[in-house]
């Protein structure tokens, strides 16, 4: 456990050290520290994951904290390994990516400092089980990531987004403070493990506490309707940080929900249904909004919401399994959820890193200006394609495996006794299929529009991928994506201890059928690859003596087309958005000259987030009105403020000395 803390300290020290070295060496310095930290973090984390049990370290503080327990159990170990590897990959990626900001010495120093701080605090969040200490590291995590989101603070939009992010995080933590304070008051201890007595009771207090925790952690995770900060913060942050935030940081919210669940024993059935339904809505809402986006990073941010929904569905299925005392369903749900945590980290990081390569080369995130990139940056586009297939949940890649586990859990729920369960299972079952089909639409759009076809606007500098440090982290993760996709049964050994924590009644023999299924799939996919090779070979064989000529695209005889005539991301998504116009309202602004042959015309479309439109804007309005009642206190006159101070002092004196 000490080595784990040493690792976290090393990552932080790396960021600190980066301040003091010359500009070119900053990234390398941070990388060296982050790499060294892996040697301290991964052995205890993987040891706990594979062997079970937990490492405990009591730390004695004076004052209100008292003795704080740091615990590394399989659940924490899983999230900590993801965090640690994520930090390392971002450190590699930053070597190349941050060259864009050459000359901005102070900005670069703060970047590495805060990346180090954020990574270290995330690691601590995952092991800290003392209320006060937890809130401190949680806040450090939020604040350090706020400074990273605000990295390009010269830009007005970025400043606004980062403040929005900051406020959202504070609103979220308010729920957490309330929940943690209540739970520790009710249990009489600051240690998480003592909350079990309060949370297990199945009374209105435990229900309300769970809801508070769910809202608080859900804000971090991006559960609808508390998700509105994600599509703002992710595009604003530098890409390495977007990947870290989306791949790792929002998972601390999931970690929190899972931790509370672990303390709640067998959950209340209403909570289980609630989590499942909210998650399905989160998933559908996330991907539906993603389809409407033009900004590639904003689109990916909405996809994070979708994937949080899928993870939540796994958790919901797991909870239902516990409620109905069916360890098999519970196992499938929790297994799918935690595997999807890992999977989402891999493919979403690749997608963000890839979008960063695109941005660093073309300086635009607007997909309608891109196109044909696969000819300029073939390796990036291959890895982006693999990650796109994975996030869509298609076979051969890892997304399929975790979604399959959740599907299986839902399908098994059909054989449970209650009609509510059956209906909920169908909602999840068809909801997941709907999410999958929409993700297919969304990623054919992203990949097809950005990487295939022809450039929609001319690139001023020919894009290239000479910066190899950008490709290394993508390459590592792509290998993991394909590895899990083709050899899925290996993940069972890795995750079984985490799942066993949640489903203590699970007999290890019950994992055997799942292993069998995964082995069958593995063989089938190998055969599929072989079959594809066979057909491609047959094609090559048939064409070997035939004439294969290259000619312009057949545009029904029209020969003077320009690349601007290609379908854009907006036009590709239009038929679908037309179908769901009520759920994803679009504002379309057309400008054209009112003459017969207009020479110029323009069309702009913006989507509005329903949750912002109907929940946050009105509630902020009401809040503003209420607070305005007190605005007279702030007059802006110095004399008045001095008088407040005097009145306060006099009241204080009277209070201390007593009225009598």
């Amino acid at each position, binding site marked *: 456990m000490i080595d784990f803390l040493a690792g976290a300290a090393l990552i932080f020290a790396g960021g600190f050290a980066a301040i003091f070295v010359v500009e070119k060496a900053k990234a390398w310095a941070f990388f060296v520290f982050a790499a060294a930290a892996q040697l301290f973090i991964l052995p205890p984390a993987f040891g706990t994951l594979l062997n079970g049990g937990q490492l405990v370290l009591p730390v004695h503080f004076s004052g209100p904290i008292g003795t704080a327990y740091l615990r590394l159990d399989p659940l924490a170990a899983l999230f900590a390994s993801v965090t640690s590897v994520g930090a390392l990959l971002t450190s590699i990626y930053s070597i190349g990516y941050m060259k864009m900001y050459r000359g901005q010495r102070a900005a670069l120093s703060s970047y590495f400092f805060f990346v180090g701080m954020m990574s270290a605090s995330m690691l601590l969040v995952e092991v800290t089980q003392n209320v006060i200490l937890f809130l401190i590291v949680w806040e450090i995590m939020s604040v350090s990531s706020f400074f990273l989101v605000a990295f390009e603070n010269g830009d007005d939009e970025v400043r606004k987004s980062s403040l929005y992010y900051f406020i959202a995080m504070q609103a979220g933590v308010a729920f957490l403070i309330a929940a943690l304070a209540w739970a520790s008051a009710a249990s009489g201890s600051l240690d998480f493990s003592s909350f079990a007595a309060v949370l297990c009771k199945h009374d209105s207090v435990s229900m309300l506490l769970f809801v508070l925790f769910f809202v608080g952690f859900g804000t971090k995770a991006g559960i609808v309707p508390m998700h509105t900060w994600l599509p703002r913060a992710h595009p604003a942050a530098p890409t390495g940080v977007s990947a870290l935030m989306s791949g790792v940081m929002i998972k601390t919210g999931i970690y929190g929900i899972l931790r509370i669940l672990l303390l709640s024993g067998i959950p209340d059935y209403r909570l289980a249904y609630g989590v499942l339904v909210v998650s399905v809505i989160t998933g559908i809402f996330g991907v539906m909004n993603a389809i409407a986006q033009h900004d590639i990073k904003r689109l990916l941010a909405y996809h994070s919401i979708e994937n949080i929904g899928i993870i939540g569905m796994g958790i919901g299925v797991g909870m239902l399994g516990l409620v109905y005392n069916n360890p098999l369903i519970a196992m499938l749900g929790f297994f799918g959820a935690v595997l999807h945590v890992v999977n989402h980290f891999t493919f979403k990081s690749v997608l963000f890193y890839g979008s960063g390569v695109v941005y660093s080369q073309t300086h635009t995130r607007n997909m309608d200006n891109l196109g044909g990139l696969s000819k300029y940056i073939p390796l990036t586009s291959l890895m982006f394609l693999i990650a796109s297939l994975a996030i869509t949940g298609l076979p051969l890649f890892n997304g*399929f495996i975790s979604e399959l586990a959740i599907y299986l859990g839902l399908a*098994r729920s059909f054989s449970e006794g209650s009609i509510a369960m*059956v209906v909920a299972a169908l909602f999840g079952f068809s909801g997941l299929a709907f999410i999958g089909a929409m993700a*297919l639409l969304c990623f054919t759009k992203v990949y097809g529009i950005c*990487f295939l076809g022809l450039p929609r606007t001319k690139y001023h500098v020919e894009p290239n991928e000479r910066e190899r440090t950008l490709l290394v982290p993508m390459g590592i993760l792509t290998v993991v994506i394909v590895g899990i996709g083709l050899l899925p049964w290996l993940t069972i050994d890795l995750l079984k201890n985490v799942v066993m924590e949640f489903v203590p009644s699970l007999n290890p023999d019950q994992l055997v059928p799942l292993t069998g299924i995964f082995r069958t799939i593995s063989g089938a996919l190998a055969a599929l690859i072989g*079959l594809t090779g066979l*057909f*491609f070979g047959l094609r090559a064989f048939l064409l070997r003596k035939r004439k294969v*000529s290259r000619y312009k695209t057949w545009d029904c005889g029209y020969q003077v087309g320009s690349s601007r005539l290609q379908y854009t991301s907006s036009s*590709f998504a239009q038929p679908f958005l037309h179908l769901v116009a009520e759920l994803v309202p679009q504002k379309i602004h057309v400008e054209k000259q009112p003459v017969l042959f207009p020479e110029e015309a323009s069309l702009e479309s913006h989507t509005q987030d329903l949750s912002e439109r109907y929940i946050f804007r009105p509630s902020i309005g009401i809040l503003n009105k209420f607070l305005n009642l007190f605005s007279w206190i702030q007059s802006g006159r110095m004399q008045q403020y001095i008088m407040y101070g005097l009145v306060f002092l006099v009241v204080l004196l009277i209070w201390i000395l007593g009225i009598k």
Partner: protein
Amino acid sequence: MPKAVAEIVIVISPLFFIGLISKVKSLWAGRKGAPVLQPYYDFFKLMGKGEVISTTTSPVFRIAPSIGIAATFFALTIIPIPVFGSVIHFEGDFVLFAYLLGLSKFLMVLGALDTGSSFEGMGASREVTYSTIVETAFFIVIGSLALLTRHFSFETIFASVNLASGFSPLVKILLVVSLFIMLLAEGSRVPVDDPNTHLELTMIHEVMVLDYSGPDLAFIQYTASLKMTIISILIADLLVPSSLALIPACALSASIVALVFVSVGVVESLIARSRISHIPQFLFLMTTLSLTSFAVVAFFLFGIIR
């Protein structure tokens, strides 16, 4: 051994069924029509030709048809052939089945976008839009079957679907119609799409493959017909009792599949292709029917209706 023969027969047959559709349409229109085996002649003609490949395209364009045909072949090994069963089966195999078709679709859409043609972009966009409706409804179909039989693999589902209790005929009718709508959508037939109207703005699948030629086009056309055959076999699975002996079962399944294709031809002769804006409504019919069947199963199982 008979199973292998059955699989081979199915692999060979899809183009025959396409010919059957055209024959039905011709006869209905009072024409003599092309021979039923015409699609085979076309197939082999295309296999022997060279290709013209757009200069805009990347390797994705060239590999897409091969992945498409391989994935669809694999989907065939997952579905059970009446009385013979399936080649690959495991719990949750229907997810692999649906996602293999998704994989094939993903690549074909990318192939269309790779050409940079606005026509193909349009077809691709429609294809993925409609598949969001069809795929969701397909999982509701599976859901009602899983609820009815309490099995979670195609083979065991269809083996026991005919043993279920008295209300199953109603459920079966609803599911057969749902699957038939799926067949029309996935196979790009009237009223969703019209395979005969080449180069018109109203099309979906045909316009997506405008730039393919030679063996690639042959693969694509075969893939489309195989996909339709697969769905019609699912329909046969629903209807053929598993207690039947080998020969009558084979005869019955073959005639059901043929009947499905004849009905496709009849539908195409009777009604015109829908307006694009009306297609989602038609596809939502599949959602409604499958939801109804789910509700019927649930109500009966939980004793709300007796």
